[in-house]
């Protein structure tokens, strides 16, 4: 039990550090890019012809874009620590509310994508791992390398061409019903499954080669009992650890896939924020992504500890 608490506290501290680093980095990046921010905001709110120098100066004052960089940084940091992410520079709406709304869309897409990848990777990975080097294994290995090499937008465009434009089975873009989720979730899930199938296969093959697995067989165990009690549980540890790492890919992928399928999630929100140089949006989205990443990794570590209290999280089986 003590180990579990240690893992959680260390992850919480880590989460705080990551959040601080992410926030500071986005602040730095946004501030070192060339160009006058106040002018760009003015252009974004009105249009190029009607902007006057007076309007730019007013925006500079209102949005706190004046004064030395360090003072602006600490002022912003103090606000962020109170969970006040500020308002969008473009439309003036609070970033926090918008983020929560957008996050719920990304979470739905990510959940569906993970489900797809699990449904593909677990059975295929186990089938490959049980007979390494045989037909199923060769096939899944080839498929994985091809799919890993293909960027997700290629897979996505292919799906849109086939299922939306040619066959008219599913909508190409939008977010009004579950039908809209099928293509983006498939695109995301297949991209994830390409890697996780191999990880599952390797983990299963590794457990099967261990002496405790053979001994469990010599004890007279077999069939589903052997696979469930001695196989899956041991193989799950490296797979779960990978899942945490894959989450980064999931969030990266979300930007591409959300843009492709016009899905109103965090990824697109971040992208729109970056294009409009909407600092509070970029910082808020960056923070939330960083936090989510740390939270998922903490969940993975806790699960690994629960599965095997004998080991430190992330450590390979002996």
């Amino acid at each position: 039990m003590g180990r579990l608490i240690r893992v959680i506290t260390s992850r919480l501290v880590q989460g705080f550090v990551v959040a601080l680093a992410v926030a500071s980095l986005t602040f730095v990046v946004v501030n070192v890019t060339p160009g006058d921010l106040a002018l760009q905001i003015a252009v974004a709110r009105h249009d190029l012809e009607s902007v006057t120098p007076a309007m730019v100066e007013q925006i500079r004052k209102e949005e706190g874009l004046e004064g030395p960089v360090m003072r602006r940084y600490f002022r912003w940091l103090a606000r962020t620590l109170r969970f006040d992410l500020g308002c969008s520079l473009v439309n003036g709406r609070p970033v926090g509310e918008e983020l929560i709304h957008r996050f719920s869309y990304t979470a739905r897409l990510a959940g569906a994508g993970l489900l797809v990848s699990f449904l593909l990777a677990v059975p295929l990975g186990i089938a490959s791992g049980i007979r390494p080097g045989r037909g199923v294994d060769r096939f899944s290995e080839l498929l994985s390398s091809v799919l890993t090499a293909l960027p997700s937008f290629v897979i996505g465009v292919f799906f849109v061409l086939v299922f939306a434009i040619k066959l008219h089975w599913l909508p190409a873009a939008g977010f009004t019903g579950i039908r809209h989720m099928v293509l983006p979730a498939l695109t995301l899930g297949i991209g994830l499954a390409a890697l996780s199938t191999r990880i599952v296969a390797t983990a299963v093959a590794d457990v099967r080669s261990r002496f405790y697995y053979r001994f469990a067989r010599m004890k007279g165990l077999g069939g589903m009992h052997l696979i469930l009690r001695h196989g899956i549980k041991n193989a799950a540890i490296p797979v779960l650890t990978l899942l945490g790492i894959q989450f980064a890919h999931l969030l990266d992928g979300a930007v591409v896939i959300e843009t492709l399928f016009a899905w109103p999630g965090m990824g697109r929100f971040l992208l729109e924020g970056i294009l409009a140089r909407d600092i509070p949006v970029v910082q808020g989205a960056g923070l939330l992504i960083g936090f989510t990443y740390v939270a998922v990794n903490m969940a993975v570590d806790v699960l690994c500890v629960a599965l095997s209290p004998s080991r430190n999280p992330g450590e390979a089986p002996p």
Partner: protein
Amino acid sequence: MKKRMLEVNDLTVRAPGPTGGKILVDGIDLVIRQGGLFTLIGETGSGKSIVAQALTGTLPEELSPSGRVCFDGVDILRLSAHERRSLWGRKLFLLPQEPERALDPTMKVAAQVEEIFKVLRYSSRRKAREETRRLFARLGLSASNEGRRYPCQLSGGMNQRVLFAMALASPANFIVADEPTKGLDPLLKRRVTDLLGELNRLGKTVFCITHDLLVARRLGGNLAVMFRTRIVEKGPAEIVLERPSHPYTQGLFQALPENGLHPIPARMLQEMQGV
């Protein structure tokens, strides 16, 4: 006379190769009766482990055995791989050398014993737990303390005893122990040897393979000495150990620390090879 549990006739194992291949085990004959205790002693490379593998059906596929290994009236050399596997845990139990590698690292040790009761004896969960507790107590372990730990949290000796609890839990009556004392310190070695004797007293037929004369002496029962692929001497342990008749067995005795640690002369070994 008790019924014959295991009868080995003219067991020969060849490694693959030209001109019939190298002979690894040459014409072994053995009889082990039900409830008996049998020790096969020999040096590394004498072929004793190959004999154990032939007995348990774990012989590597490329080795071709001939002869007969009748186990409970069935010649296991004639069985398919699947049929041989069906004997594991039901008719024979292989006690492995290294408990740390044999136990599942992510499962509490008591649960690893309980599952034998549940799967192989169809016991209820409660009965399995009760029986495991009893076995643990008999072996000096506590089911509520050590039983709730993972293998890596226990000492080598405790894990060793968990394996013995598994052997006792198993419905198999024939226990094959391949070098059970390998790499153990003298104290632990004596304990493990005594546990093997305990298994035998509790009704299991025990077949022990060792290179250690002291283990063989402490175990008692019947003994066969293996030297360069052949059995050179066999009989009740006390007689073979008291009055060894084969020069190799005599040499082994001279090599014991309490007998002066005399190495077996190379000349003697060369002569014996011609036998």
